[in-house]
Every structure is written in structure tokens, then in C-alpha cells.
């Protein structure tokens, strides 16, 4: 009985080749989970062996949404509670996320990509490089075209900025071209990709960026 409990709690054998780890952060409702739902089949179609760790704030809704999506083996989705501190769990103290990633790597030898989805946060949210190798920040046009101008650390420091919900631009009075121009302006040479995660527009470009950055694809 005791040994069975210990085996259940065991981390599993440490893998020799560790998976690339990427973060996807951004404000509440910007479309992080929707983007991951679109990315999973695209990356799987390219033969990428992946798993996801979510950081829901008060529920396990994002984790459950992915588990029930039919897009990924539910065992490959792990939920980490953020203790009311979505910043802390990805930056000041990412150890729970690192441990969750280690457990997934132990359970799924051959894992190539681990995606850490941050809980909905604000523009000051950034990922620790102790946790991830590369990270995306997702904002959306309905959040306001002034978001890039506010130069939040998330917008400025991420490796890839995704501007989502482009289809809503005409309905919320946003000049999309101007918003994208400003986003590129504040980020120097770092990339910005516009997406509509609902339709899938732009998702291939995000998958390309991930594969080039951390999976050594051409």
C-alpha cells in the first residue's frame, strides 16, 4: 500500500534529453487557451510531442477545457495552482511549474515541447528564464489599441508578441494596422504576429516561430 502510494507520487526517471519549455502569458481573456487549442493540432501535425501545464487562478477551468478538448491526451495536461499570485508562479517562484514539467517529462519520455500557460494577468507579467526557454505574450485588440503604447514589461520583453482577435478590430474601433505598427515600434526588432485564434488565422506563423526558436526547425 505504502509503496503503491510512493510510486504514484514518484517523479519518474529523469529524462536524458529535456523538452524545450515555452511560456504563453497575457491578460485575462486575451485568448491564451484558444491559441493553445489551435496550436496543439498544428504542432502535432508537424510531429511535435508536447504537453501543457496550466496556471488557472481560482479554478481548473483552463486545464479542464484542454483535457476535454479531444485535442490532447488528458494525462498530458497538468494544472498548477497560482495561490492568488499569477506573477509569482511563473517568475519569482516557478518551482511548482518546474516540478510539474519534470513530472510530465518523467511520465512521457520523448516529450519535445512543454507549454506553460500563465493564469490571466496584467501587462507587468513576465516569465522567469529559470522556467522557460522562450515565451509568448498574448494581447487582443478588444483590450484597447493603446496596450502597446503602455509599454508593459510583458509586451516589451516577450520573445513573440501575439495580437489576437483581429476580427474584432472594426467592432471595437481599433485601427489594426496602426496597433501592429505601434507594437512593432516599441519592441525594436522582436517579432509581432497578428492572429484570430477563433478562425485559426496566423496560428501557423506562431507555430513556425516556436519551431524555429526552440525546436531547431529551419
Amino acid at each position, binding site marked *: 500500500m*505504502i*509503496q503503491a*502510494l*510512493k*510510486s504514484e*507520487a*514518484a*517523479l*519518474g*526517471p*529523469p529524462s536524458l534529453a529535456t523538452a524545450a519549455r515555452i511560456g504563453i502569458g497575457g491578460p485575462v481573456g486575451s485568448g491564451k487557451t484558444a491559441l493553445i487549442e489551435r496550436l496543439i493540432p498544428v504542432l502535432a501535425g508537424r510531429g511535435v510531442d508536447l504537453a501543457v501545464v496550466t496556471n488557472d*487562478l*481560482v*479554478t481548473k477551468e483552463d486545464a479542464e477545457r484542454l483535457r476535454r478538448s479531444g485535442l490532447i491526451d488528458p494525462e498530458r495536461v497538468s494544472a*498548477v*495552482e*497560482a*495561490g*492568488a*499570485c499569477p506573477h*509569482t*508562479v511563473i517568475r*519569482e*517562484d*516557478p*518551482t*511548482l511549474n*518546474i*516540478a510539474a514539467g*519534470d513530472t510530465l517529462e*518523467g511520465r512521457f519520455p520523448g516529450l519535445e515541447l512543454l507549454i506553460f500557460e500563465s493564469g490571466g494577468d496584467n501587462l507587468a507579467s513576465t516569465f522567469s528564464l*529559470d522556467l522557460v526557454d522562450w515565451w509568448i505574450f498574448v494581447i487582443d485588440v478588444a483590450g484597447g489599441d493603446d496596450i502597446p503604447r503602455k509599454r508593459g514589461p510583458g509586451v516589451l520583453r516577450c520573445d513573440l508578441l501575439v495580437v489576437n482577435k483581429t476580427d474584432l478590430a472594426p467592432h471595437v474601433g481599433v485601427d489594426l494596422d496602426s496597433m501592429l505598427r505601434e507594437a512593432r515600434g516599441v519592441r525594436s526588432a522582436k517579432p509581432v504576429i497578428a492572429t484570430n485564434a477563433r478562425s485559426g488565422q496566423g496560428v501557423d506563423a506562431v507555430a513556425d516561430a516556436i519551431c524555429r526558436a526552440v525546436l531547431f526547425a529551419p
Partner: protein
Amino acid sequence: MLAALLALQHADSAFPSGSFAFSNGIEGLAALEPNFGADGLARAVTAILRHRWARSERVALTLAHRATGDFVRLAAIDEAIEAATLAETMRQGSRRNGASLLVTHARLGTPGAAELRAALSAGTVFGHLAMVQGVLWRGLGLDEAAAAQISGYQTLAGLVTAAIRLGGVGAIEAQRVVGEVLPVLAEVLAEPVETPATPDAIRLESFTPLVEIAAARHARADLRLFAN
């Protein structure tokens, strides 16, 4: 001087350990008591220190500190923590908190961390927080008394911080509670810990029924900020 500074480093909540995600019963208690505030917090923290931490985690940590390198004894200590922790989310929390603390120490190369992580990977230990702390802090050169002081202070500070984040008490009022409870912690820290002659004689005691009930209810809550 260096020993005191080392103790401060490892007592600091800035040291990555995953502890911030666990309320260890406070969120459940706050849900049971609509007016949970400074008085309720002080009662809860005092009860947890006297009736759980004093004879469970403190004893386990101290025995682990003395048993470093003896994995038969460490596994027995770990099993005793498992047996003495009634609520499932508290057991899981202690294991996850231990594994998270171990992540940091494994990366820092703390003496003993690699062996402990190998034991956890192999499933020969659960990796409960108190056992992990005892081994790692001994590995760093912290003495037994300092290790117990850090654990006790972190337990107190963690419970109070959870209450602040839940909105039950203000950050300044919370420090009044900390000040009131520190003498309780000092009193508990002065209690001796006997080393049992054999690993199978290790017994830990914990009796905090209201906290256990609150934690069990919390485990089924739809909305929760903390893991336990």
C-alpha cells in the same frame, strides 16, 4: 555571523519553494467562518503550531536532520508524515511543496539534493516538505535548532500570508498576529525531540480536527486560490 545570514536566506519567502500556493487549511477555515479575521487567524495559527507542527513537522524535520544519508530512516520519517496527515490535499501539498523546494536545491547543487531527488524519482520516498527541509538544511550546514526555527517561522508566516491574500486580514494587522504568536512558537521550539531507537518506532502526532474538516471541504470547492 555567516550561519545567521544563511538562516535568513533560507527563511526568506523570496527563496523559491512553491510554498506560496498552499494555505494549509486557512482558505478552508476562512470559508467556514464568514467573519474570519485577525482573531480567528491567531487562534488557527496557534492551534496549528501547537497541535500539528510541534509534534509532527517539527519532529520529522529534526529527525531527518539527524538522519541525513540514512535513507531507511528518512523513508520511515516520510511515511510517518504521510500517516499523520489526515486530509488528502494536505498530504499532496506537503509532497508537492517538498518536490518544489528540491527543484531549487537540485539546481543550486545543495549537498544531499541530488540523492534525495533520485530517491523521489525512484519512488522510495514521498518527499514530504519537513523531511526534505531537514536533509537539505543539514546539507547546507544549518544546525538542528536553526532548521526548526526556519520551519516554524515559515509555517507561521505562510499561514498569515495566505489570510492576507484571502482578504481576511490586512497586511499590517497580520503582523500584530505574528507578534502575538511568536512566543507560542518559541515555547514549542524549546520542546526536546527524542530520537527513536529504530525507524519503525517513529511516531508523529497531529490533532487539528477543525482544520482537517475545513481542508476536506476546501478540496471539493469549485473556486479556490490555494492548492489546500
